[in-house]
């Protein structure tokens, strides 16, 4: 039995309603956990005053410089003692999940046992960076909790100016739209750069995310410094019998309105016999028609990955999408994955060398220009890297002939 609970009239209102209530969960933990009694006390105070009361600090585990998010209460009484002492320290351990966030129940039960023993009993599946977040731990218990989780074969995730925990979609494990082994690609990039995850010394965070197709379920173009998106080079696969069955089931109007005219490059046409004509060279692999006609249409067989660099949210210069730096690369053989690993470390090295403090890759590219970034990585330019050519004349072009010759040479070599 824990200490008596505080009155929490505001939080109590979040126990009503049909959606599962985190407050009911906190209260259940508080029945035999003082830390949770006091956490509820502090949270209720936040609801009353509309202010947050946590400050950061420095808490870690032996051998690593990051991965723990320290939180110390700032709610103090007149003698500078914590008002809610049992929750005065409420740290989070970030732990990297298996790719695709798959688990057997035994593993999760073990997590629960460990966290009941050393922490608050509150776990988030998962944080915005993709970590399992073990929330609520005293400074003294961080090390034994991590040791127990680490013994299970799980490692600390990223925090601070470091390589962050990667994310990959369900992909090959349970999705026919998957164009590469997302789990392997994400593991390759993160595990090749673990030193920069566990010992933060980069200008700022660096994220790797992998989505098996252009639906980008991992939101990687907008949120990852290195975004891997599955695609294919050959023709989309069309099962014409299934197309006919679909048209028969849904009607021509539905198919024309929701598939044919929705194609962003008008690459689709419905034939008189209810089969589908595809202008494959004009298909941009957007996935819409395949999403709608899951049985009739599929990605082609010559599959690989497009890589975009520089996605990020607000700080400092505003939102940036990733930019294509590799339009296509196969990702099947061990050599392909070695190429990916090398590219990931080269991007990281260039970023570590050239970015300003607190600058993300996208901001660095914005500052130095894409061509400088590509030169630094030894990547050939490609028209797929742009939406349209430049619209202003402010550029010195006295190397034009050499550049044009380079292009012709590359074209001839293909």
């Amino acid at each position, binding site marked *: 039995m824990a200490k008596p609970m505080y009155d929490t009239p505001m*939080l109590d209102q*979040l126990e009503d309603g049909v*959606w*599962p209530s*985190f407050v009911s*969960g906190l209260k259940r933990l508080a029945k035999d956990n003082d830390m949770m009694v006091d956490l509820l006390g502090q949270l209720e105070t936040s*609801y009353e005053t509309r*202010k947050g009361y*946590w400050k950061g600090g420095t808490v870690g*585990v*032996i*051998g*690593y410089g990051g991965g723990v998010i320290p939180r110390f209460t700032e709610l103090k009484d007149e003698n500078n003692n914590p008002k809610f002492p049992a929750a005065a320290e409420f740290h989070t351990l970030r732990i*990297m*999940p*298996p*790719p*695709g*966030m*798959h688990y*057997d*129940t*035994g593993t999760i039960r073990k*997590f*629960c046992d460990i966290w009941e023993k050393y922490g608050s*009993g*509150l*776990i*988030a*599946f*998962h944080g*915005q960076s993709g970590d399992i977040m073990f929330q609520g731990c005293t400074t003294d218990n961080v090390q034994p909790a991590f040791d127990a989780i680490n013994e299970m*074969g*799980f*490692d*600390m995730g990223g925090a601070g100016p470091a390589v962050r925990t990667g994310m990959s979609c*369900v992909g090959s*494990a*349970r*999705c*026919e739209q998957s164009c590469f082994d997302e789990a392997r690609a*994400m593991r390759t990039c*993160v*595990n090749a750069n673990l030193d920069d995850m566990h010992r933060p010394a980069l200008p700022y965070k660096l994220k790797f995310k992998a989505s098996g197709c*252009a639906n*980008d*379920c991992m*939101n990687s173009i*907008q*949120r990852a410094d290195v975004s891997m998106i599955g695609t294919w080079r050959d023709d989309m696969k069309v099962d014409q019998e299934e197309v006919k069955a679909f048209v028969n089931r849904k009607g021509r109007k539905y198919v024309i309105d929701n598939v044919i005219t*929705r194609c962003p490059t008008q690459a689709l046409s419905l034939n008189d016999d209810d089969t589908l004509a595809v202008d494959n060279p004009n298909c*941009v*692999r*957007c*996935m*819409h028609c395949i999403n709608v006609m899951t049985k009739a249409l*599929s990605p082609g067989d010559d599959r690989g990955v497009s890589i975009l660099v520089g996605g990020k*949210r607000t700080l400092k210069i*505003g*939102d940036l999408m990733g930019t294509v730096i590799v339009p296509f690369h196969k990702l099947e053989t061990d050599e392909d994955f070695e190429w990916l690993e090398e590219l990931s470390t080269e991007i990281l090295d260039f970023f570590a060398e050239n970015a300003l403090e607190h600058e993300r890759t996208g901001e660095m590219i914005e500052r130095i220009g894409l061509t400088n970034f590509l030169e630094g990585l030894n990547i050939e330019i490609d028209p797929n890297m742009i939406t349209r050519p430049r619209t202003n004349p402010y550029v010195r072009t006295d190397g034009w002939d050499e550049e044009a010759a380079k292009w012709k040479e590359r074209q001839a070599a293909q």
Partner: protein
Amino acid sequence: MAEAPRMPDETGVPEIEPYLHPVLKKNYGNWKWHDRPRPGVLHHVAHSGDEIWTVRAGTQRQMDVYTIRKLMDIADEFAEGYVRFTIRSNIEFMVSEESKVQPLIDKLLEEGFPVGGTGNSVSMISHTQGWLHCDIPATDASGAVKALMDELHEEFVREEMPNRVRLTTSCCQINCGGQGDIAINIQHTKPPKINHDQVGNVCERPSVVARCPVAAIRPAVVNGKPTLEVDERKCICCGACFPPCPPMQINDPEHSKFAIWVGGKNSNARSKPTFHKLVAAGIPNNPPRWPEVAAVVKNILRVYKEDAKDFERIGEWAERIGWPRFFEKTGLPFTKYHIDNWRGSRANLNASAHIRF
């Protein structure tokens, strides 16, 4: 001699195989097609002929071990001992026999876990930490999400939207919640309040100066102490200075307001990915249920549901009908704050004679 400490086993991201449902492991990279028999259920068929049914349920994300164990009990008794989580904290149970689907759904509903979040539904809100754990939050995350999902539950368990709807919330303008069809974020409206006695002690002043996107922060001396000052005419109240310098308090119970953004889209389907755009602001931060926020969000969703064509995401719908019509149909006021004035803003101005009347 003290015992040497245990050094971490630097294993990195674990292998996927040990955690995969056997049918997923067997058919890895070899799936053929899928359909959705009903909302909340996916059915995948592999080239081998193997089939797997997935039942998706909503969770509160911040879960106590009792709730987690309850979900694991359900997975062991009604499913096949394996689960996975989506990026929006929905839990998925995989079963290899269709006959197991309904009992699993019944059990989840009995235990209070809504089944849905698939296809053209409003899925669970991806969100941040808020007052529960963040060091810089202007509002709560879990509470706002719980209050909103109570209201949007019907749209979670059905697939009746024109296309999928992805919501996010963020408790500061850094927007860890990310891009969304509708993003519900705090927008600070006043410059930071600076405790000049503390700045010199706790802030690395040059790096704080460097963080300001509008160069509004400069070193100063107040009461003989080194500190920082803000040019309030330049300040855009973004809060970037607050995380590295807590004495520059940006959060304000009164003046940190909610803003609603729409049209974020991470998929490349049909249109290219887009960022969300500001449509409403100045909404009070009103715990524990944030009714004013819910009203704006529900109104936008109602109009979108009535007006958009099949497969149009919110942003695609607004672009098709035009933003003037969006404001007209939703009844939201159009203000000078909607007109972008940040770098690159001219791309967001109408440089054409394309005008609807």
